[in-house]
């Protein structure tokens, strides 16, 4: 249709301005959803998983010791023997790295429950303190669990290589009852908040499973092999980095936010529409 024909068709259709206004809203909504639909179809391929392997920084135990004495000794005691806070001689590198890299330590007051924060120390400083705490265990002949290394998932199931499928099954079996199937967290009894896993790195996920930050249970190598632990960490990473195939994830809390959006937004918009349309004669 040529532009001229189009406008003459319009004028022949002679929609009153009022009616044009009436139809503009629905037309816009339908148009928008067509666009959204096409974008969705076009973009529905899942992007490849990225997992940067960072080179381990050079560590300096002496710096670690100095930092420990300045920031930790007051609670954990000289040489990590314990004081108002638990001893650190046997906790090992996994616990030290987990508590420091998730910003749980240093704590402000012994009465606080440790919660995730932006880390207080730089990466290099954390490595130094971790090395110091690890050395304490080695000194006493009681080295704790080391930082678990996470093998990236393979597309095909091959020996010694974890798959996402393994990871999902293990995650749903061992972690979802507290952290939610989609990793968005929840609540335990007595008001313990279960944090979301969506910002945890694969290493932190594996560390958490080995350490078991109270009140989370710890999973030793007898319960989850290193390979299984890798699979879980890879799956959690996949969950939190892959765009949702269905569109906006609305907090990943399942039917409650969905119901909220459906009732408040969905019906809400339609009630406004009914209000706009309904009272016209």
């Amino acid at each position, binding site marked *: 249709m040529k532009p001229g024909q189009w406008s003459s068709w319009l004028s022949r259709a*002679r929609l009153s301005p009022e*009616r044009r206004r*009436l*139809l503009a*809203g*629905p*037309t816009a*909504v*339908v148009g*928008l*959803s067509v666009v*959204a*639909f096409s974008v*969705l179809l076009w973009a*529905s391929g*899942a992007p490849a998983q990225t997992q940067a392997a960072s080179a381990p920084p050079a560590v300096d135990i002496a710096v670690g010791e100095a930092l420990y004495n300045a920031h930790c000794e007051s609670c954990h005691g000289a040489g990590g023997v314990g004081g108002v806070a638990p001893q650190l001689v046997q906790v090992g590198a996994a616990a030290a790295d987990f508590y420091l890299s998730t910003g749980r330590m240093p704590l402000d007051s012994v009465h606080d429950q440790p919660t995730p924060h932006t880390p207080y120390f730089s990466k290099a400083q954390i490595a130094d303190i971790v090395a110091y705490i690890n050395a304490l265990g080695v000194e006493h002949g009681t080295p704790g669990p080391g930082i678990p290394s996470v093998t990236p998932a393979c597309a095909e199931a091959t020996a010694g290589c974890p*798959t*996402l*499928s393994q990871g999902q099954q293990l995650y*749903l*079996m061992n972690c*979802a*009852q*507290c*952290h*939610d*199937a*989609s990793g968005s967290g929840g*609540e335990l009894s007595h*008001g313990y*908040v279960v944090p979301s896993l969506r910002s945890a790195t694969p290493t932190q996920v594996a560390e958490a499973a080995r350490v078991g930050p109270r009140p989370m249970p710890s999973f030793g190598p007898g319960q989850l092999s290193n390979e299984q632990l890798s699979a879980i960490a890879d799956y959690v990473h996949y*969950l939190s980095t892959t765009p*949702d*195939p*269905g*569109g*906006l994830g*609305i907090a990943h809390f*399942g*039917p*409650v936010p*969905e*119901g*909220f*959006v*459906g*009732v408040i*937004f*969905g*019906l809400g918009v*339609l*009630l406004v*529409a*009914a*209000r706009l*349309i*309904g*009272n*016209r*004669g």
Partner: protein
Amino acid sequence: MSTLAERAAARKRAERSQSALDWLDDRLGSSKWLRSAMDKIFPDHWSFMVGEIAMYSFVILVATGIYLTFFYNASGAEVVYHGPYRPLDGQKMTIAYESVINLSFSVRAGLIMRQAHHWAALIFIAAIVFHMGRIFFTGAFRRPREVNWVIGTTLLLTAMLEGFSGYSLPDDLLSGGGLRILYSIVQSVPIVGTWLAADLWGGNTFPGNGDFFPRLFVLHEFVLPLTLAGLLGAHLAVLWRQKHTDFPGPGKTEHNIVGSRLWPQYFVKTNALLLFVAGVVFGLGGLVQINPVWVYGPYEAARASSGTQPDWYIGWLDGALRLWPHWEFRSFGHEIPNPFFPGILIPGILFAVIYAWPWLDKRIYRDYGEHNLLDRPRDKPLRTALGVAALAFFVDLTLASATDLIGNALGVPFETLIELMQYGTFVAPIVAGVVAFRVCVRLQRGQVHPIQRPVGGIMVRDARGGYHTVGAAHDGHEASAEEHGLEPAGAGPPAGASEAH
């Protein structure tokens, strides 16, 4: 204010539509019915269109549902998935779950259809509840419309069942969890419960021998939708026969109905609403994720996820289960298991009261007469207060279904929330009811009832010397019908859009 040319065009259009009508009439003899149908009056108040939001959601549910049935496979048999969604690759699952995963990732437009279907279900029931609220608070259920109240309540119940059965079809972790609870509730029915559960699921343990999925599917895509369609047809037929109610106002009596004709005004209005419903449902379906079954994984009895909730319209039942104290009763040598009370007895009593409401209302107000004019909610403070109290009760139960999430968000232990909401089942309705009652009384005092307001307007002269009316309550449908030039001249009843009851 139309030019000569415009009038001629309008006449031509009218002739054209007349000849189309003649064609139909020659063949079907339908012009008399069609003429009266086209002239049917619909009141111009937005709240009357909420029922239509429900109706159009239902239409979309059926349309998207048909698409889904082409690909859904109701079988409890086990397969190993191999497909594009990597985390599920190589996992064992039922064919039912696999077919939903395929719908989401391998079938063209499958995901948007699934999501639109689910969003439409949420909006469908929300619209029914809102619609029901408008019927209740304005007294539209009074004689002669008790029949439609009863049909409507049955529609709501059927729609809830339809939604729950749909939620259960994919056999993911949430479906399975919901069915596991339903299984226990069915088992808890005194005397017959165990047999009933074994018959439905086929076998004495959950999830049975796999017969359940075909049964569920027949319910969801055949029995319940047909029931809904039949009931909806009856609902509309009764409405057509009895005509709409309307709010009191100038020119409105118990014996007439004022508003827009079905053709052409109301036709445009209702189709605009249909487009809106379709736009919102498909907009949400394309943009906002709902029920990501691939994240929940296939159902396995040993697994659980925190944050497992039913869809919102079942939330109040889940909440009732959470709030009910752990009491059990024995009588005549039979144990009445705990879930029976919150799962069956309480909803049963609530719906019995809803069904009986038109008759209870007659007793309360000693009013057995016919009513075509609506009450304003404030004019019946007691009824309004009871309705608001019931809503507060439902909201309390619904919130109780989300205690773990609310606790997480507010940092409050959920034991505290459960206790608060247990008190809330008594306190919230009373507080909300009393507040509603007082608000009604206040509003009543502060305003003149529209029926007592003067009809017409006041003529004023402005600074330039022109005259116009202000405060004209009735802005004249006659004028607008003429203006659009769509009335075939000399045909049909006079242009004033009103008819007798």
